[in-house]
């Protein structure tokens, strides 16, 4: 008898999501859908607002990566005013953003990803959370993690006045600078974070790479897709989070295109499906080809792993070492093993910490010329940054009084919507076998598919304690015949 498995709600998502799996008469997966049940309408309701207010409105799209939206918005607004920005402000914004990355990556890696590896994908679900991780690695390390994330938040607060929901950017610069006393307060925090990023790499080597089963799962499991990669790179094709050009590289390593932010609409388009509120971006010049991987695909991922795949190098020396080690271990570049995104996050954090150190030693960083008052309104702008979870595009237009007339946003995780949908289907089809009842362990393996993306509808998943509650209902003839649920903790 054909039946349906509903995973609703999947949790540890920013917002809400659900998965529906259709099984055929033999119990094999016939089809699978990843649905987003929410729409908040930011693109419409920012119309009519003064354009300079947008950076402090769009932050509320996501409370875990508000700085990504704040900065993409600030860049779009800069461009609406002719694009001139105080050079010092560019440094301060970049500095802020590196601290923001560290906060988010720590939260994701330790609260969300680590339980699957430290405790194990098939362990007692009641233990498979951040508290289980702390129990396993000890309070000393748990405390270290809490301290490091807190320090990353503190650096943002010192620099821009707030961590969650910054209000700091104005067209042409930022609203406050960094003074000598504040710099001295930041310095030791940065030193500790630099140590912490190396510590995290060591932990990954020990816990994940030291376990042949995990290495096999990463490299040979169903968690791969033949789709392209997208990410921001600087003039040397090194990884950059705040600025540069968007580069797209195919799954064999060939560059497909490279574009400046203002040209995004020539390269990316969005497909709409009636069964979900979230759109599906694809490479416009290849056209919408459906949910398919392989040579003809127009789909791509935009993740930490994709960023490292599209770049030729990291921007700092220790990050470069970590990057080379990662690709050497994974069998070369580009890497299609989606679970390696967890490792890529740690490599990125090394660059974040090194860049913070560089800014701390920049003799100009405490200067006062952090803002230029714009002298004209030019009316249109596109701002692109790398959000933690993918390339983030904000495109605005405004009238001659600087009132927003339109906004278009392509958010980090939206880029990955098709890939998440497809890999969830692939993992479900591999793990759910005819004649074998899907158990909790199998469900966790399905969850691990989208968890590798750190999806932005899971932003808040960065919170403690991290464990994915799941429910699966078996439906036969329209009736729920059986419900599987992780044990309540």
């Amino acid at each position, binding site marked *: 008898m054909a039946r349906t498995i509903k995973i609703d709600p999947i949790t540890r998502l920013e917002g809400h999501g659900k998965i529906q799996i259709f099984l055929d008469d033999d119990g094999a997966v016939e089809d699978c859908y990843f649905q987003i049940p929410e729409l908040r*309408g930011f693109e419409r309701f920012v119309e*009519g607002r003064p354009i300079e207010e947008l950076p402090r409105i769009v932050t509320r799209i996501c409370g875990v990566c508000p700085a990504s939206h704040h900065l993409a918005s600030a860049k779009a607004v800069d461009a609406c005013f002719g694009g001139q920005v105080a050079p010092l402000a560019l440094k301060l914004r970049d500095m802020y953003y590196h601290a923001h990355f560290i906060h988010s990556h720590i939260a994701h890696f330790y609260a969300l990803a680590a339980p699957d590896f430290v405790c194990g994908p098939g362990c007692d679900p009641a233990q498979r959370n951040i508290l289980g991780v702390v129990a396993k690695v000890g309070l000393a390390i748990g405390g270290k993690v809490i301290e490091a994330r807190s320090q990353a938040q503190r650096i943002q607060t010192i620099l821009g006045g*707030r961590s969650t929901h910054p209000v700091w950017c104005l067209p042409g610069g930022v*609203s406050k600078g960094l003074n000598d006393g504040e710099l001295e307060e930041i310095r030791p925090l940065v030193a500790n974070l630099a140590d912490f990023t190396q510590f995290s790499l060591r932990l990954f080597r020990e816990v994940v790479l030291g376990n042949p089963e995990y290495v096999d799962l990463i490299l040979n499991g169903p968690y791969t897709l033949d789709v392209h990669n997208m990410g921001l790179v600087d003039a040397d094709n090194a990884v950059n989070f705040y600025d540069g050009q968007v580069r797209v590289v195919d799954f064999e390593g060939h560059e497909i295109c490279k574009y400046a932010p203002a040209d995004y609409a020539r390269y990316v*388009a969005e497909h709409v499906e*009636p*069964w979900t509120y979230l759109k599906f971006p694809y490479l416009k010049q290849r056209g919408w080809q459906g949910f398919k991987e392989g040579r003809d695909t127009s789909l791509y991922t935009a993740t930490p792993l994709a960023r490292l795949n599209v770049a030729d190098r990291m921007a700092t020396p220790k990050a470069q070492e970590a990057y080379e080690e990662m690709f050497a271990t994974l069998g070369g570049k580009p890497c299609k093993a989606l679970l390696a995104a967890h490792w890529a996050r740690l490599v990125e954090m090394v660059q974040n910490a090194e860049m913070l150190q560089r800014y701390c030693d920049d003799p100009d960083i405490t200067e006062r010329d952090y803002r230029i008052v714009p002298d004209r309104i030019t009316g249109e702008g596109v701002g692109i940054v790398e959000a933690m979870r993918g390339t983030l595009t904000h495109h605005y237009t405004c009238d001659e009084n600087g009132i927003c007339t339109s906004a*278009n946003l392509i958010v980090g995780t939206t880029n990955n919507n098709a890939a998440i949908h497809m890999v969830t289907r692939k993992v479900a089809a591999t793990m759910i076998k005819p004649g074998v009842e899907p158990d909790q362990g199998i469900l966790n393996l399905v969850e691990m598919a989208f968890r590798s993306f750190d999806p932005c509808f899971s932003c808040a998943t960065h919170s403690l304690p991290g464990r994915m509650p799941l429910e699966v209902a078996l439906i036969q003839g329209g009736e729920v015949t059986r419900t599987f*649920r992780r044990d*309540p903790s």
Partner: protein
Amino acid sequence: MADRKLQVALYWGAACGGCDVAVLDTDAFILDLAAAADLRFWPIAVDGKYDDVEAMADGELDLAIFNGAVRNTENQHVAELLRRKAKLLVAFGSCAHLGGIPGLANAASRDEIFHRAYLANPSLEEGNVVLPVTEKKVASGTLEIPKLYRRVHKLDDVVPVDYYVAGCPPAPEQVKAVLKAVISGKLPARGSVVGCSERAVCDDCKRRKEEKKVKRFYRPWQVLQDPERCLLEQGIVCAGSVTRSGCGVRCPNSGMPCRGCYGPTAGVRDQGAKFISAIASIVDSRDPDEIASILGQIPDVMGYAYRFGLPAATIPGTARSL
């Protein structure tokens, strides 16, 4: 409550996750919270499901913390469910308290929102006419998604609320204080806004105040401000005088004006109306034409006055019906 652990649920409606980061930003206190409370339902973090909550006895939970606004059928369903199951229901953060920034959507219709998102923007697939629908038949069966309401609602529009925690997001120190108060059982009168002060942001702002008389309003980008002086006195529109304090004056301290996330001061029903009257009262002119011209320098009064509270406005055009 000392003899047993508190039974607690946390949930988000139409939210951004910032309220959950605010809980996380209490740092090591999180471990104290986990020691004092069983987190029975917290979709972002622990393993409770809707069915688990349905199975609880009414009133079984000591506390349910709800952040986010009520935007669709799913949000409302869970709000009603938690109200039944919890002795105390807390509206946590600006969205649950007043509607929050997502509440600005009430200035647009649902059709306009759909139109912009799916039919008219520069990156849509050419010729797209597809819109999401609440029920869609596909080859293997039927797929459902919740219905989006025409309006955004604050939590107490759909269920009675016992306490409100202000802020977008609530400041971590305030979050800690509120959770400690719940753990110790020392709670103020029901209906209170907690985790904030009775003063206005202005009262706690260290900027120098002289005379509030304004001949010319400026948008924040138009001038380099005096970092020591009251922003409003410099002609930069700031909601600090009509906004409850408790945030730590974090925006004015960052060189930016307050936009009112902590909501109206004690005893004020409509923060936006209060804001408009406060602004009008400082215009330095008696000439009606000049007054009109000075006030005309402020664009988008609605977007300043009701930045965080359009669903809580008493003005017409914010219908409460679902």
